[in-house]
C-alpha cells in the first residue's frame, strides 16, 4: 500500500507544511489559526497555535534552511514566524494587497518569498536588514485574474504562476541588492524585476497548482478542465504538451523526479503521470491501486510546438479501452485534496515520500518505495 500514515487533524485543512526535519507539521484547520503538531511516541501533539491572522489562512510554507514559517491569509496580510526561545514570534509583512492572499512559497535560497493573490498581483517579499523589515515588491498588471499558485525555479530568480485567467506565466524576480547576477541563471538573470519571460495560453479554464521539475527544465500545471499541462524548454521556444484525463480536475502537482509527476485534486486520490524516453507525458495510474495493464495506459499526449495553434491539439490519454472499473471511491482521502508536499531528506535529489492534505481534514503520507512499476520513472 502506498499510503504509509494517515491522520485526521481537523474537519478540514486548507494547507500544510513540514518542519525542516519533518518532526513537526504546520497546518491550517480552515480558520484564522496555524497549528503546529509534533509527532511524539506515535501521537501528534499540538504544541503551538499561531494566532495573528484575522481571516482564513490560505497557505503556509516552512523554510528548510532558516526554519521560518510564512503564512498568508484572506485578511490580505502575511506573517513571517521566527522560532525564538521556544516561541514563534510573528513579523507582519504588509503585502499592499486589496484582495486575499492565496498562495505562498519560499524561494530556494530562502531570501525571498512569493505570494499570489486575488488582486491579480504577485508579491515578492524580501528582508531589508537596515530597516529590520520585510518589503513587498509587486508584479502588477500582468495577470487578468487571481493568482492561484506560485512556483520558484531552482535558480532563485524565475517565478512561475498560474491564474484563473487560464494562463501560466514566468517572471523574473531579480531584486538588486538581494540577488546576484551570477547566481547560476545565465540569460534569465539579465531580466529586470517583474519582466515576463513567457506566457502560456494552453488552458481555457482556471489554472491551478504549478511546479518546476527538480532541474528547472520542465513546468507542470493543471487546468480545471481535467487537463494537465507540461512545458519543456521554458524560454523562447517552449515545447508544450496537454494531457487530458478521464477523471475530475486536479488542484496541485508535485514533481517526484524529472520523469514523474503526482497530481492531486477532486478525485481524492493521487494520480501518477510519467514521461517516456521521448519526453511524452501520459497518465499512468492512481496511487494505491494497481495498474491493470501497462500497455493500454500508454497513449501519450502530443507534442505541439510553441503557442497559438495549441487549441484542440491535445490527444487523449484515456486508459483502457475496455470496461473501466468504477473510480476508486472510499479511499484514503474522503474529499478533495488541495495540497501536496514533498518529504525528502536534505541532499536527496529524488522524492520517494510525500504528503497530501485536503478538505477532509486528513494528512496522508505516501511512499513510492515498493511501487515496482513506477521505479523506472524515479
Amino acid at each position: 500500500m502506498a499510503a504509509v500514515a494517515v491522520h485526521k487533524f481537523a474537519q478540514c485543512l486548507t494547507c500544510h507544511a513540514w518542519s525542516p526535519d519533518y518532526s513537526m507539521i504546520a497546518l491550517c484547520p480552515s480558520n484564522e489559526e496555524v497549528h503546529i503538531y509534533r509527532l511524539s511516541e506515535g501521537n501528534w501533539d499540538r504544541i503551538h497555535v499561531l494566532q495573528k491572522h484575522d481571516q482564513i489562512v490560505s497557505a503556509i510554507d516552512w523554510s528548510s534552511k532558516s526554519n521560518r514559517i510564512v503564512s498568508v491569509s484572506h485578511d490580505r496580510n502575511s506573517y513571517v514566524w521566527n522560532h525564538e526561545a521556544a516561541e514563534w514570534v510573528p513579523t507582519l509583512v504588509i503585502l499592499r494587497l486589496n484582495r486575499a492572499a492565496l498562495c505562498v512559497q519560499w524561494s530556494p535560497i530562502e531570501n525571498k518569498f512569493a505570494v499570489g493573490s486575488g488582486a491579480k498581483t504577485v508579491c515578492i517579499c524580501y528582508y531589508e536588514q537596515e530597516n529590520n523589515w520585510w518589503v513587498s515588491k509587486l508584479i502588477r498588471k500582468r495577470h487578468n485574474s487571481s493568482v492561484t499558485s506560485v512556483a520558484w525555479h531552482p535558480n532563485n530568480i524565475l517565478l512561475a504562476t498560474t491564474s484563473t485567467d487560464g494562463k501560466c506565466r514566468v517572471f523574473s524576480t531579480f531584486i538588486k541588492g538581494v540577488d546576484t547576477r551570477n547566481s547560476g541563471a545565465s540569460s534569465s538573470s539579465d531580466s529586470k524585476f517583474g519582466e515576463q519571460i513567457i506566457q502560456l495560453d494552453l488552458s481555457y479554464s482556471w489554472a491551478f497548482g504549478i511546479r518546476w521539475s527538480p532541474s528547472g527544465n520542465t513546468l507542470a500545471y493543471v487546468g480545471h478542465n481535467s487537463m494537465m499541462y507540461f512545458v519543456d524548454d521554458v524560454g523562447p521556444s517552449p515545447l508544450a504538451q496537454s494531457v487530458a484525463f478521464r477523471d475530475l480536475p486536479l488542484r496541485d502537482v508535485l514533481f517526484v523526479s524529472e520523469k514523474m509527476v503526482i497530481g492531486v485534486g477532486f478525485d481524492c486520490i493521487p494520480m501518477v503521470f510519467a514521461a517516456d524516453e521521448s519526453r511524452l507525458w501520459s497518465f499512468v495510474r492512481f496511487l494505491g491501486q494497481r495498474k491493470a495493464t501497462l500497455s493500454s495506459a500508454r497513449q501519450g499526449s502530443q507534442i505541439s510546438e510553441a503557442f497559438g495553434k495549441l487549441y484542440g491539439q491535445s490527444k487523449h490519454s484515456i486508459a483502457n479501452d475496455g470496461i473501466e472499473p468504477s473510480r476508486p471511491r472510499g479511499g484514503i482521502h474522503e474529499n478533495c485534496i488541495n495540497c501536496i508536499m514533498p518529504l525528502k531528506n536534505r541532499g536527496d535529489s529524488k522524492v520517494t515520500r510525500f504528503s497530501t492534505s485536503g478538505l477532509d481534514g486528513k494528512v496522508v503520507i505516501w511512499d513510492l518505495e515498493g511501487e515496482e512499476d513506477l521505479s523506472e520513472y524515479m
Partner: protein
Amino acid sequence: MSGRRGGPEEFVEAENAEAIILRIEQKSRKIETLLRQSRPVEALKTALEGSAPKTMDERCKSANWIVVHRAIMAIKDVDGMLFSLDPEYYDILMKYLYRGLSTGDRPTCDQCLQIHEKLTQRAGLGCILRCLADTENTV
C-alpha cells in the same frame, strides 16, 4: 480568436464563412453516401471532423450541427459506435451531445442522452468537464 467571448446577441460573420459552408455541404453529401452504405460510424466521424469550433459565426456552427445531428440520429448501436470511435473524437462528440440536449427536441434528446450515458462511462467525467469548461471552442 477575433470574436473571443462575444455575447450571444453579437453577430459575428467569419471572413471565410462561405468556404466553411461549402465544406459543410460537401461533408453533408459524403455523410449521406456513407449512411446509404450503412456506415454510420464513418458518417459520424466525418461529421465531427473539421467542425471549426473556433469560428464565432453562428451560421457555420448551425450548419455543422445539422450535419452532426443527422449522423448522431443515424446511430443505432451506441456501444458499437463508441467501440470503433477513436478517443480523440470523445470531447467534440460530448459538446455536440450537449448541443443536442439543449434543443429540447424529444427524439434528439432521447438519442443524445443514450449516447451521453455510454460516452461518460467510457470517457469519464473529465470529458464532461472539458466540454463544460470550454467557453472558447464551442459548437
